């Protein structure tokens, strides 16, 4: 079971002080938060992708590479990589490069993005969101698995004799999660490919998450990737902790009431009752999180949103300290009663092992003058 944090990279005014961080501060804060996440023992840190203010996260692979260079162990991921408006060829190249630079210490989560105005800036139409996700991923999947691709689709210019470079590290493409809040088509897509499915249930009721994950598990088995309880499931979560429950509520309420996503809407109490948001003591966060299993089964990855709504960096780092202290109990709790045949989340090492060991898949170009390749010259 992996534990981690995910961010959307928003620049939000702290409602308690009226102070808004600069883009520079926020971008650097993401790095600090990621380093702290590794320090407290978390397994994953995921960064967002947005192309409009108030977000700074327009270039996830840049941020991921910078974090990777300053960390040793933590897995870099995304929340999410926009499969709708980003050219799948660029995704293949950017994340392919990142995979080599990080020695495989990365994966990615695909999402559609829900901001209407962003689509036309990239020549796309939000009403085609599902179709874009389906077609673009079908191409990305091939680019990482076939050395030479001939391809024609509806949303991008055709490809003839195209090779995406670099080829995947050790011959194993990065693991892909498909993220969705409410679209059954995305659960179906994840199941079809045998990829991971991430249900970001932080904004929606658990009853819906239960149905989405059940659908994904059922269809994962249908497509022959394993039994339903072996499907690779990730969940979003959201908390604000203080040692004393009342202190947590008192401190977080002003952030909640003004949060860009749900502020000025339901009360903190109603929202916490209807979604997985937990505001309280570490013990309350532990119990609520462990209970997620009751409606999705034993799963592989739990990510928490902790750095949003204008919370200052200092507070976020304190939250990470508390999460770090809670981690042994979380790991022990999730290990309890977990059947042996339920797999862990795939990592580069496990995927390489499953493929029978590493293979160098570098494609050596043929010299069109001499008809030899670099490799021939080296060996000659």
């Amino acid at each position: 079971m992996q534990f981690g944090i995910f961010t959307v990279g928003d620049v939000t005014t702290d409602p308690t002080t009226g102070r808004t961080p600069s883009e520079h501060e926020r971008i650097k804060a993401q790095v600090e938060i990621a380093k702290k996440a590794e320090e407290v023992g978390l397994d994953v840190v995921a960064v967002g992708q947005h192309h409009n203010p108030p977000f700074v996260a327009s270039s996830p692979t840049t941020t991921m590479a910078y974090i990777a260079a300053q960390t040793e162990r933590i897995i870099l991921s995304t929340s999410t990589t926009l499969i709708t408006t980003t050219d799948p060829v660029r995704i293949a190249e950017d994340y392919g490069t990142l995979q080599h630079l990080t020695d495989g210490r990365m994966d990615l989560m695909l999402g559609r993005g829900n901001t209407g105005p962003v689509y036309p800036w990239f020549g796309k139409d939000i009403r085609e969101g599902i179709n874009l996700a389906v077609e673009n991923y079908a191409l990305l999947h091939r680019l990482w698995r076939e050395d030479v691709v001939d391809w024609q689709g509806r949303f991008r210019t055709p490809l003839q004799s195209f090779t995406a470079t670099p080829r995947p590290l050790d011959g194993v493409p990065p693991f892909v999660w498909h993220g969705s809040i409410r679209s059954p088509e995305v659960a179906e897509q994840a199941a079809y490919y045998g990829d991971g499915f991430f249900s970001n249930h932080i904004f929606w009721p658990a009853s819906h998450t239960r149905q989405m994950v059940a659908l994904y598990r059922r269809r994962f088995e249908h497509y022959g990737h394993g039994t339903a309880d072996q499907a690779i499931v990730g969940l979003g979560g959201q908390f604000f902790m203080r040692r004393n429950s009342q202190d947590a509520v008192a401190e977080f309420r002003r952030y909640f009431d003004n949060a860009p996503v749900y502020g000025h809407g339901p009360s903190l109490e109603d929202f916490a009752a209807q979604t997985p948001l937990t505001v309280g003591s570490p013990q309350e966060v532990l119990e609520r999180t462990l209970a997620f299993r009751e409606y999705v089964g034993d799963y592989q990855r739990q990510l928490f949103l902790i750095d949003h709504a204008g919370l200052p960096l200092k507070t976020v780092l304190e939250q990470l300290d508390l999460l770090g202290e809670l981690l042994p109990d979380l790991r022990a709790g999730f290990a309890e009663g977990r059947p042996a045949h339920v797999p862990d989340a795939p990592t580069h090492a496990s995927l390489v092992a499953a493929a029978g060991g590493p293979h160098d898949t570098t494609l050596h170009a043929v010299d069109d003058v001499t008809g030899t390749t670099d490799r021939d010259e080296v060996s000659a």
Partner: protein
Amino acid sequence: MTSLVVVSAGLSNPSSTWLLADRLATATVETFEELDVTYVELRGLAHQLTDRLLTGFPAPELAAAEQAVRKADGLIVVTPVFSASYSGLFKIFFDVLEAGALDGTPVLLAATAGTARHSLVIEHALRPLFAYLHAVAVPTGVFAATSDFAGTDLGSRVLRAAGELAVLMGKTGGSSGAVAERRHVDADLAAATPFEQLLRQAGAPSSARTDLTA
């Protein structure tokens, strides 16, 4: 059993909008041997409707109301006239319903106002809204000004409209198959659209695709 849902956007208590809704429901019930009636009073859902706009998901009571409307064989909708149209609260409820929720559903349109000078509000405001929602609006709409509650002919208009609604519910209720069913999220959760089909749809030109898969 045939189900009728009555949506009322009256704000005061007692509310003339609610009184009209109740008269229309009673008249409809009398034409059926068995009818399951659910009342949705939007006043009690006002906060949840605003939350729904901001969070994107319905709180439990609102979710139950949306579900009842989606599964209804017929609807009676009644709004007070605010600023020459349906009230904002009334509109929010129909704004947040999942697309296609009212496809082919018979709907009796009714409105109340302080003055008879709003009497065409059903024709110029409600009918276009429910045409857009692909509902089947009953030919007779019932408008009641304050003075109508003191008059003598409101009862006959109520009976006529309720009778028309009952006929439409009888015709389209059950498994008539006359109405193409739009695919809802619930349907996809119960039985996924096979990925091969999603892939075909993604690659097909817009004109050849349809969201109205039966």
